[in-house]
């Protein structure tokens, strides 16, 4: 035996739901790193710890049920084992379903790895009346078996030295795989054929180095396609070997009336059954497990939908309604940051601010609008983590699978849709990230492409704005419409996609293990909620800030033409001259002689007014007075006039101030008219007029591609008139809309387009990450734009022609869409035509 290595690598392998990640966390603590396996979008989680001998690197393999080559995760896990050859494997097994877990253990043992078994969740098994003799199990398997309870950190102390002991039996770099460690499965009648194939494989030195030969022989007899590829790569006479394998398969099938593949499974199952029989003592005879008792209520055929609706309602109430109330507490902090930033920046000019000031404030505003949602997201993601960890998410998938199935989707599309904001409001970015869990490619792509239709939280301000202006009387109908039309349209689109362009993609059956209910741990829930929220904040930190700059530039440049500028400057000068005229005979004439002094006076007057408004109590108000009096003794009488002369002058100052802000507003608006976006918005008017959008709406929609939040912000800038009379944006849009003939029908077409509108930039980037293709990213932008515009134009044009009002158009469209969705659900799925073999075809291509 060679001396023990100091630094070793451990592969963490096991089936889904065996508690692999809790064992991973238990072993490595916070030292974790997530990357991708090369070339694929499968997460590779690594972590490490130190023991007395050195560093131990732990690689968390994808959770798979076995090590065949039928799914991406399985292939990734197997390639990793063959290529990286970890020094030992830690096999995590759910003690309460030992028999099935053993199938996996057998496959790793067959690959000739030293194995340590973490017999996890022994407490659950004990509660179910199963006592497992782990020492005996270890003796029979020829490996160390350590009972663990990952959630409580039990077994950590025993696992570490056991892994060292297993890894001690070291291989050299090029020696190939040695004889199998531990138990060798006896395939009885098939053994002679395995031996024969084994002989053939020994001929190739390359192959001896690359793979464990007995494993290879078994895989070839099983008909494993990846094993065949390995054979062709490493064995010079691969065809001769394959002939021998085919002959052996035929002979065996002839004699035994069963395929070798089935026979192998049966042998493994028999062995697993006998191990369970020898090592498991049943202390409670056939009790109904606790989770099943809960399911008799929660999954009761008639009550299940009621509990589901209650759950979704609870999520909505706690995260959106209560979370929104929380934002009233957090908003002042964000507003404080803004005014603090404003204080640091150069003072505003008379009519034109410096670039530094206006651009910085623009960025702070953009980031603030996004950060405002953080409390909502924290609550929402924590609740969803509770659903996942408790096991209820799998039940939701079970209840809803039939619905999704009709539209080419999958029960496991539920989580992405919920994160994306079905009914409630969410964010497509974490939604698309969650599509990783969907096993088949077709539903996964269809889900990725339809999650952005959900009610993203950032769409809600625009909906609220439009609904409260144009549909105040029908508020609840409109809100119901918005929250359900999105899912209806998403289903229609999913069906269209899966039966057309996604037609040939891999599909997978809905074969899902129903996990036991668990009490979620506080740490687990917090960790997930914070992680997902952090992803959202990073989006704010990077993409949105970058895009905010671009949008700023496109909205501000090329700027006003010189003659308009001169016109505004002229009007301002007139106003200043009038003010000077008013103060000519007074003591202030000298102090305010030059332009800078007047500007200073105006700015001080503004901050004074803001400070007075912010002061909530009489004392605070007096304190503000005292402060300004001390800071600006000469001009304070103008701010707070005490004699008739000062009162007159103060009135004159106020009218100067009003004129200034009117002019600034007019400039801001005209700047947008002349800006690049304004030009594009106008250029699009001939197309968008069929949907009833004028150029202002176009500009808002274009800028909201960067981030939805900016739609309302941009509209706020576009509908400036009256901003200074403290009118709300609702009132301003209402007034101006009435003047330009913007009707509820226009508003409805806008709502509809916004619901179908392409995902925001951050989401499209996530589409790229999850599909690994720019083609799908482009598709996710272009398709919804065209489709949304077509639907909005169709609805607007036809409704105008029929003379329908906004609310009539809404009802008409709703029933039309619902009817289409129901009709489409009866359309047979193209994948159903090839029962049983649906997955494999696309893979070879």
């Amino acid at each position, binding site marked *: 035996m060679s001396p023990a290595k100091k630094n070793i690598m451990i592969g963490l392998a096991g089936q889904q739901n065996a508690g692999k990640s809790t064992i991973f966390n238990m072993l490595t603590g916070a030292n974790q790193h997530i990357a991708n396996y090369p070339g694929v979008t499968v997460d590779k989680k690594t972590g490490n710890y130190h023991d007395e001998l050195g560093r131990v690197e732990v690689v968390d393999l994808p959770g798979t*049920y*076995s090590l*065949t080559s*039928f*799914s991406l995760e399985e292939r990734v896990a197997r390639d990793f084992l063959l290529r990286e050859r970890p020094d030992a494997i830690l096999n995590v097994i759910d003690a*309460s*379903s030992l*028999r*099935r877990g053993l*199938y996996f253990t057998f496959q790793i043992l067959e690959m000739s790895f030293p194995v340590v078994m973490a017999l996890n969740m022994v407490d659950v098994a004990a509660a*179910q009346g*199963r006592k497992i003799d782990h020492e005996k199990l270890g003796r029979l398997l020829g490996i160390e078996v350590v009972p663990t309870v990952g959630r409580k950190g039990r077994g950590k102390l025993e696992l570490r030295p056991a892994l060292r002991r297993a890894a001690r039996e070291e291989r050299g770099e090029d020696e190939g795989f040695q004889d199998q460690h531990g138990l060798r499965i006896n395939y009885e009648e098939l053994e002679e054929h395995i031996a024969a194939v084994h002989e053939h494989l020994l001929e190739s030195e390359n192959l001896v180095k690359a793979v464990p030969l007995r494993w290879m022989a078994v895989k070839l007899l099983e008909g494993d396609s990846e094993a065949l590829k390995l054979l062709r790569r490493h064995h010079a006479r691969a065809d001769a070997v394959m002939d021998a394998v085919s002959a052996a398969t035929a002979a065996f099938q002839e004699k035994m009336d069963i395929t070798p593949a*089935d026979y192998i*499974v*049966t042998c493994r*199952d028999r062995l697993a059954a006998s191990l369970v029989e020898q090592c498991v003592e049943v202390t409670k005879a*056939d009790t*109904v*497990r606790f*989770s*099943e008792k809960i*399911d008799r209520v929660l*999954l009761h*055929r*008639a009550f*299940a*939908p009621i509990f589901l609706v209650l759950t979704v309602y609870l999520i909505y109430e706690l995260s959106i309604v209560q979370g929104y109330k929380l934002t009233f507490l957090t908003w002042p902090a964000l507003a404080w940051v803004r005014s603090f930033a404003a204080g640091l920046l150069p003072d505003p000019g008379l009519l034109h601010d410096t670039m530094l000031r206006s651009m910085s404030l623009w960025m702070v505003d953009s980031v603030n609008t996004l950060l405002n949602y953080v409390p909502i997201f924290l609550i929402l993601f924590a609740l969803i983590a509770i659903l996942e960890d408790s096991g209820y998410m799998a039940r939701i998938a*079970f*209840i809803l*699978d*039939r*619905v999704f*199935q009709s539209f080419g989707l999958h*029960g496991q599309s539920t989580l992405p849709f919920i994160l994306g904001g079905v009914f409630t409001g969410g964010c497509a970015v974490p939604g698309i990230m969650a599509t990783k869990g969907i096993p088949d490619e077709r539903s996964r792509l269809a889900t990725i492409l339809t999650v952005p239709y959900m009610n993203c939280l950032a769409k809600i301000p625009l909906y609220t704005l439009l609904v409260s202006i144009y549909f105040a009387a029908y508020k609840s109908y409109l809100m119901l419409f918005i929250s359900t039309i999105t899912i209806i349209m998403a289903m229609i689109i999913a069906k269209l996609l899966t039966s057309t362009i996604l037609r040939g993609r891999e599909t*997978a*059956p*809905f*074969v*899902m*293990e*129903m996990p036991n209910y668990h009490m979620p741990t506080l740490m687990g829930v917090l960790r997930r909620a914070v992680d997902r929220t952090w992803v959202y904040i990073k989006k704010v930190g990077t993409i949105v800030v970058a895009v905010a700059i671009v949008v700023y530039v496109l909205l501000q440049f090329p700027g006003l033409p010189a003659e308009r500028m001169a016109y505004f400057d002229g009007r301002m000068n007139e106003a200043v001259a009038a003010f000077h005229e008013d103060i000519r005979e007074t003591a202030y004439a000298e102090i305010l002689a030059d332009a800078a002094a007047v500007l200073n006076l105006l700015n001080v007057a503004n901050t004074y007014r803001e400070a007075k408004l912010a002061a909530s109590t009489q004392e605070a108000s007096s304190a503000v007075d005292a402060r300004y009096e001390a800071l600006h003794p000469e001009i304070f009488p103008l701010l707070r006039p005490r004699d008739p002369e000062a009162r007159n002058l103060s009135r004159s100052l106020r009218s100067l101030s009003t004129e200034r802000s009117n002019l600034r507003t007019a400039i801001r608006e005209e700047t947008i008219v002349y800006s690049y976006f304004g030009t594009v918005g106008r250029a699009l008017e001939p197309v968008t007029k069929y949907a009833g959008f004028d150029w202002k709406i176009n500009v808002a929609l274009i800028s909201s591609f960067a981030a939805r939040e900016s739609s309302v912000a941009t509209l706020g800038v576009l509908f400036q008139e009256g901003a200074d009379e403290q009118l709300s944006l609702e009132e301003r849009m209402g007034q101006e809309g009435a003047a330009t003939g913007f009707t509820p029908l226009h508003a409805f077409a806008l709502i509809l387009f916004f619901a179908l509108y392409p995902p925001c930039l951050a989401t499209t980037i996530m589409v790229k990450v999850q599909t690994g293709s720019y083609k799908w990213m482009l598709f996710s932008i272009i398709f919804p734009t065209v489709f949304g515009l077509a639907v909005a134009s169709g609805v607007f044009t036809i409704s105008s022609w029929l003379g329908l009002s906004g609310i009539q158009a809404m009802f008409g469209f709703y029933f039309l869409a619902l009817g289409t969705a129901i009709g489409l659900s009866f359309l047979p799925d193209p994948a*159903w035509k090839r*029962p*049983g*073999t*649906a*997955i*494999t075809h696309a893979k070879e291509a």
Partner: protein
Amino acid sequence: MPLQECPSCAQTTQSGNGEDQTLTNVANGCRCRIRRHRAHGAIRQRLLDLGFVPNAEIEMVRCATLGDPLEMRVGDYYVTLRKREADLIDVRAA
């Protein structure tokens, strides 16, 4: 326990012919034994991984509100299958 709740099982055992049927036709609460799979490739593999191996005993637990998918007990854990896949598994009464 489930056997009393299951009139169709009782009928099958009484008639004693033990004829094959597909897993879809097993009534809630009934137990059956797997005879063979008619699925291929990945679906077959996933079914095998989840314990739908020949001769395994399966107990039908429930179906979802809309009649599909089905939940069943395989040994000591619970698995859901769509009817389309369950149709590919031949069983006989246990």
